[in-house]
């Protein structure tokens, strides 16, 4: 115990003595943990808030009867109610509307039958009994939450304009809801209306979305389920409420996995920082360790001494990291919800859920990362022989790196990663692909010494020429402190290679999507429901409009689109309906293989269906295969005519010809339409026609091809904003690494610097040497980052993305942004060199010479 105290005191004293380095390492780990915690917390919050919404809205129901599509006949309700064992039943319509500008926020509407709904959901009106009756009497009444009302200054008795699908619906706010039960959903953006007015507003008279049921618990559940199935039509499903959860997790799982992988980058970079800090500490304390060893410190004790240092740094860093994480999580939550809303489903969450599991995981990861990265240097310390205490004069601190050894190991890792990359996904997820990415990083890291040595040798004459003696010295120092610089370069390279590979991936993807929009989404004018941007596939064009479109003046053809959020083999999927003739004659669709004309003819004739590339990859089906789909007319069998490139959703989509779809689903609505105009008809004239006829009752969103393309790219860029944010933090951590290790090198070289100053070097010469070194570290890191980044981007594009989302991205190298990143790296790494350079230049000559 006494010994432990002694060792602990020694460690703490050193940590305090080298405050700068300790602080930087702590910040490094803190940022790594912070990013991880914030990302996990944001996703957790988003998912939980969605689940909570589902739970609140489902209330106490233990069974639900649902269908995908426009809903099913309310007659089903009457039948279901009578099934023995059913204690209570209530019909429901749910719909996400948009509050009209200037509010512009989503409003989740629940259409209920007030009487039968009583036992299911708990909402509290803010008034006396008779006022509650207002809600029933007024056919245009709505009850909104107190929170929403306060936020936007809405009052009881006022009117509110909603865009339901494309329709402007003006409702009277008759009641306010207390913040209980379903009112808590979506940050209070919740409204209750009567089911009849919901049906009317949504043009769904006679249809309902769902029936909630409560059953007699004393009877066997399976029996009730069987009875229920007997009375419901095909395409309608009975579900137990407990199978509902997990829905959103499935939808966003690929997104979640990718973000998690990204959030580890900062931690990995932080690990290099710790490794560096501990090994510096070992080198600086060689003599001290020698002395301690010679008076009887054992090897395991030495090991513990240094790993203890890492534990301190890890604990402190992780604690601070949790704080940072909670701070960052707010921003992260905003980015995550925006992306999930844009890509998958509406989530609105503002209040962070602080999950102890995430915090503990973040803390554990931080400490584990520090301890792992300290093993190497700590073992080195434990090998120090007692006699080193006696060594005088110039200490030989050089760690010899066996270049060939390292290169071979590196190449071995790269080969292994290649083998991993060729493997099939596990549970639809590219687990081995991510492993391959890690192996590439490790592999290239092992190549750093030889690549750096080579580049340094090639560059030395140039540096001498450009910067004279300072250039020569810097080059010499880089070579001589290889063991140290390798780690710094590895850290920066890791961060850069991620940045580079992700940039290549994103920009290639962007280009691919752009090209796809350019080619495949054709038409002159596009029409969407006014609430489309937040409500996605639940918003429809009004029937009046969609029916009239083909016969409007100037219209040549209408490329209509209707999609249902369905399931295929337990995975979310889209079933869509399009006009086969338009596809055949006007659209440019690119198929993965096969004759375009032949495929489309088959499709237009209603003989076969098309699937997207992501569907084909996700479910391992190809052209010529048959698949079964659940339809309101029962399970049907379809032939796949072709697989086409599509980047609109990673769920995978099945395209049915319009006539087939309508015959099965009995649904002629659609979400959006691309309009081909007749020769000589201008977009403006057509837009004017639409405005004249429909702008009163409806809110439509009419855009040109160019505007649509910009919109698509805007959403694309928003989606990836979070990626860049995470990357940015990893780079900051790496820059800390440069400062840290140059600082350490300066301290280590203090005596050298003293000598050089003594024989006549100016301060600025010392400063310049250090800056050149910083620049070289940046330069080498960038070269290696390019190499590694290129490999990673190939992996990302051809393996990870393909397996996660199932789409082909055309590889393209964003030359300009690579040059840009190079400039940024050079500037920041030289910038990072300034602190150590100043420090080096300011050293007192006599004191530097006196110190041993």
């Amino acid at each position, binding site marked *: 115990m006494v010994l432990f105290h002694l060792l602990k005191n020694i460690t703490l004293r050193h940590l305090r003595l080298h405050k700068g380095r300790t602080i930087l390492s702590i910040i490094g780990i803190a940022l790594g943990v912070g990013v991880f915690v914030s990302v996990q917390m944001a996703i957790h919050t988003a998912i939980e808030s969605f689940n909570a919404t589902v739970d609140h809205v489902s209330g106490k129901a233990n069974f639900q009867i649902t269908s995908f599509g426009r809903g099913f006949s309310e007659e089903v309700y009457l039948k279901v109610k009578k099934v023995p064992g059913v204690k209570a039943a209530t019909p429901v319509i749910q719909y996400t509307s948009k509050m009209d500008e200037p509010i512009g926020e989503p409003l989740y509407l629940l259409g209920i039958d007030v009487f039968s709904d009583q036992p299911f959901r708990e909402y509290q009106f803010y008034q006396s009994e008779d006022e509650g009756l207002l809600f029933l009497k007024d056919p245009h009444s709505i009850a909104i939450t107190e929170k929403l009302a306060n936020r936007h200054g809405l009052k009881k008795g006022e009117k509110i304009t909603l865009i339901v699908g494309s329709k402007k619906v003006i409702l009277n706010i008759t009641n306010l809801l207390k913040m209980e039960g379903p009112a808590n959903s979506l940050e209070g953006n919740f409204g209750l209306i009567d089911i009849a007015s919901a049906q009317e507003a949504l043009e769904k008279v006679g249809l309902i979305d769902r029936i909630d049921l409560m059953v007699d618990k004393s009877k066997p559940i399976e029996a009730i389920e069987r009875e229920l199935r007997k009375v419901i039509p095909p395409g309608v499903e009975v579900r137990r409420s407990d199978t509902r959860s997990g829905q959103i997790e499935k939808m966003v799982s690929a997104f979640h996995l990718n973000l998690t992988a990204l959030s580890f980058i900062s931690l990995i970079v932080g690990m290099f920082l710790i490794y560096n800090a501990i090994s510096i500490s070992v080198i600086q304390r060689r003599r001290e360790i020698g002395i301690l060893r010679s008076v009887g410190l054992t090897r395991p004790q030495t090991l513990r001494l240094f790993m203890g240092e890492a534990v301190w740094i890890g604990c402190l860093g992780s604690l601070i990291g949790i704080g940072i994480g909670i701070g960052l999580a707010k921003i992260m939550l905003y980015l995550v919800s925006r992306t999930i809303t844009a890509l998958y489903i509406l989530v609105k969450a503002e209040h962070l859920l602080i999950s102890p599991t995430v915090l503990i995981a973040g803390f554990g990861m931080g400490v584990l990362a520090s301890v792992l990265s300290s093993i190497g240097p700590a073992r080195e310390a434990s090998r120090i022989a007692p006699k080193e205490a006696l060594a005088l004069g110039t200490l030989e601190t050089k760690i010899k790196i066996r270049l060939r050894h390292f290169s071979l190991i590196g190449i071995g890792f790269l080969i292994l990663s290649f083998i991993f990359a060729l493997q099939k996904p596990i549970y639809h997820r590219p687990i081995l692909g991510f492993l391959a990415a890690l192996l590439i990083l490790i592999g290239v890291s092992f190549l750093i010494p030889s690549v750096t040595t080579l580049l340094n040798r090639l560059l030395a004459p140039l540096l001498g020429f450009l910067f004279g003696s300072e250039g020569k010295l810097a080059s010499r120092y880089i070579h001589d402190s290889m063991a140290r610089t390798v780690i710094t370069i590895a850290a920066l390279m890791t961060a850069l290679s991620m940045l580079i590979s992700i940039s290549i991936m994103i920009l290639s993807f962007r280009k691919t999507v752009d090209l796809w929009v350019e080619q495949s989404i054709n038409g002159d004018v596009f029409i969407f429901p006014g609430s489309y941007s937040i409500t996605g596939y639940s918003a429809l064009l009004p029937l009046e409009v969609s029916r009239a479109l083909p016969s409007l003046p100037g219209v040549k053809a209408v490329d209509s689109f209707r999609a249902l959020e369905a399931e295929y083999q337990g995975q979310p999927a889209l079933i869509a309906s399009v006009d086969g003739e338009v596809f055949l004659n006007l659209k440019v669709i690119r198929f993965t293989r096969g004759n375009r004309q032949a495929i489309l003819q088959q499709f237009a004739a209603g003989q076969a269906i098309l699937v997207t590339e992501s569907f084909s990859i996700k479910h391992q089906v190809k052209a010529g295969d048959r698949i079964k789909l659940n339809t309101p007319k029962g399970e049907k069998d379809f032939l796949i005519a072709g697989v086409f490139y599509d980047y609109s959703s990673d769920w995978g989509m099945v395209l049915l010809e319009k006539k087939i779809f309508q015959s099965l689903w009995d649904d002629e609505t659609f979400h959006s339409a691309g309009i081909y105009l007749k020769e000589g008809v201008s977009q403006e004239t057509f837009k004017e026609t639409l405005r004249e006829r429909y702008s009163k009752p409806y809110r439509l969103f009419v855009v040109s091809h160019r505007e649509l393309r910009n919109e698509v790219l805007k959403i694309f860029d928003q989606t990836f904003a979070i990626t860049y944010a995470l990357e940015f933090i990893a780079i900051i951590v790496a820059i800390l690494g440069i400062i840290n290790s140059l600082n350490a090198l300066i301290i280590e070289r203090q005596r050298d610097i003293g000598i050089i100053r003594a024989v*006549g070097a*100016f301060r600025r010469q010392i400063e310049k040497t250090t800056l050149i070194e910083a620049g070289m570290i940046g330069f080498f890191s960038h070269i290696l980052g390019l190499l590694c980044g290129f490999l990673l981007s190939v992996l990302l594009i051809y393996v990870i993305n393909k397996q996660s989302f199932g789409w082909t991205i055309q590889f393209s190298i964003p030359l300009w942004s690579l040059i840009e990143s190079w400039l940024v790296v050079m500037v920041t790494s030289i910038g990072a060199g300034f602190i150590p350079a100043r420090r080096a230049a300011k050293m007192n000559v006599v004191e530097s010479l006196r110190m041993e």
Partner: protein
Amino acid sequence: MEDHFIELINVTKIYHQGDNPVVALDHINLNISKGEFVAITGKSGCGKSTLINIIGGLDSPGQGHVMINGEDTSLMDDQRLTLYRRDRVGIIFQFFNLLPILNLEENIALPYLLREGSNPPTAKMERLLHEMGLYERRYHHPHELSGGEMQRVAICRALINDPAIILADEPTGNLDSVSGKQVLEILRRLRNEQGKTIVLVTHSQEGAAMADRVLRMHDGKLL
């Protein structure tokens, strides 16, 4: 025949260590002529190194003036002081102070390299290496040399820019007697053959015997 080549006027240096100040140099007045060989002796801690460092421009006096050939180095800024160190004095230390990462030739060339940005002429380098008997070992690194050899490298380095003043702080302190004698012999030749002004701090009788003048120090004062 005092020519005031090196002149110290009332030089005082006080180190403040915590609360109690240490007077390392106490009102030193000293005059050294061009081409003179001066030895300084005294007990450990009496201020010899401090004196050498101040003459060599490594350190600055707290009070007083250090005139080198009529120029006051105590008034110089860091830039000019560095130039002075680089071009006008050569310093030899007890612990050699060679750079471990540079080989022998590069260590010698360093002050020249710092001045010109390029290596010194081969002829000059070879002459020095031959003179000091180091030619065969010119690509070796310091840790492969003996103490005597290291000190000879340090002397070469001090000479590469051809300074008029050579300062040596116990150059034989870490050497055996044979190597020590060799080093002293070299210093004597430098003064006799090249007319260098030499200030030598030494504990040895031989060193003192070689000098034109021997100064004794005690508690920061010249006796």
